[in-house]
């Protein structure tokens, strides 16, 4: 195995480390936002937005979704869409009772 092969192989792991570091930074941000008094009204929304970014990173890089074709990506969108629709429809009911 020559030096280029070795570099190529270790480079494959370093991008996972970068994603992991980003996930830890986002975790820190989400905790900081929750404890920040001035952002109290937006802390839940902020936490959920950051959670979605983290989930997106795990899906794209750890679960290799970015390397998948549109069949898998489309099915995932369908599943998330179905859940969103169910939650939205439930709130249309509960909010207007």
């Amino acid at each position, binding site marked *: 195995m020559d030096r280029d092969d070795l570099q190529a192989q270790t480079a494959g792991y370093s991008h996972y480390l970068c994603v992991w570091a980003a996930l830890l930074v986002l975790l820190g941000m989400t905790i900081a936002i929750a404890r920040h008094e001035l952002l109290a009204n937006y802390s839940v929304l902020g*936490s959920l937005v950051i959670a979605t970014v983290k989930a997106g990173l795990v899906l794209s890089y750890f679960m290799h979704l970015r390397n998948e074709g549109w069949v898998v990506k489309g099915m995932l969108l369908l599943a998330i869409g179905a859940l969103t629709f169910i939650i939205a429809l439930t709130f249309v009911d509960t909010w207007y009772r």
Partner: protein
Amino acid sequence: MALGRNSNQQATVPSTEQGRIDYAGKKIGMWLFLFTELLFFGGMFLLYAVYRSRYPAEFHWAAQQENLLLGSINTMILLSSSLTMAVAVSAIGKAHRRLSCLMQMVTMLSACCFLIIKYFEWGAKISKGIYPNSPVLLAHEKGDILFFSLYFVMTGIHGLHVLIGIIVMAIMLFFTRRGVIAPDNFAKLENTGLYWHFVDIVWIYLFPLFYLIT
């Protein structure tokens, strides 16, 4: 696609005695299972959302009873275990069998640590008399009862998924050491990785909803 090469350096598709291995089919099958899990946990998140909108003040108070430090540590543990799992899958694909086995073991140990911390968290609550249907809990406001019931059910089912993950990973580690999981045939490990990352994503959402809505 897990392709090998024969002695003439032609790309081959791995095959068993029964026929061609359907790598894409195995992966899509796992994704389909994960979608059922998404709807399973999604139903519980829906319950949480509706009850939180009904009892915001009680949910806010109850969340302050959670141990933010332990919850944060657990989140870090699971995020790190996702890293080690991803490296384990990548490593076996690159024929780094020892690294893959090591990473699988670290993932399992991390999962065990997660469950141990969960044990202490639950133990602290139960020792205060807070557990589903306890007299102490039933004496609280309705919103508190709902929060803690949802807490025990959702983290409990999530913890069950972590436990199942540990068992499955142990089996995969055995297969990897035996060579059943090999650089040209590691769909089992990859699917285990998909499952584990999904369990991590569920906790990524559970953590803010139970620990950070203060």
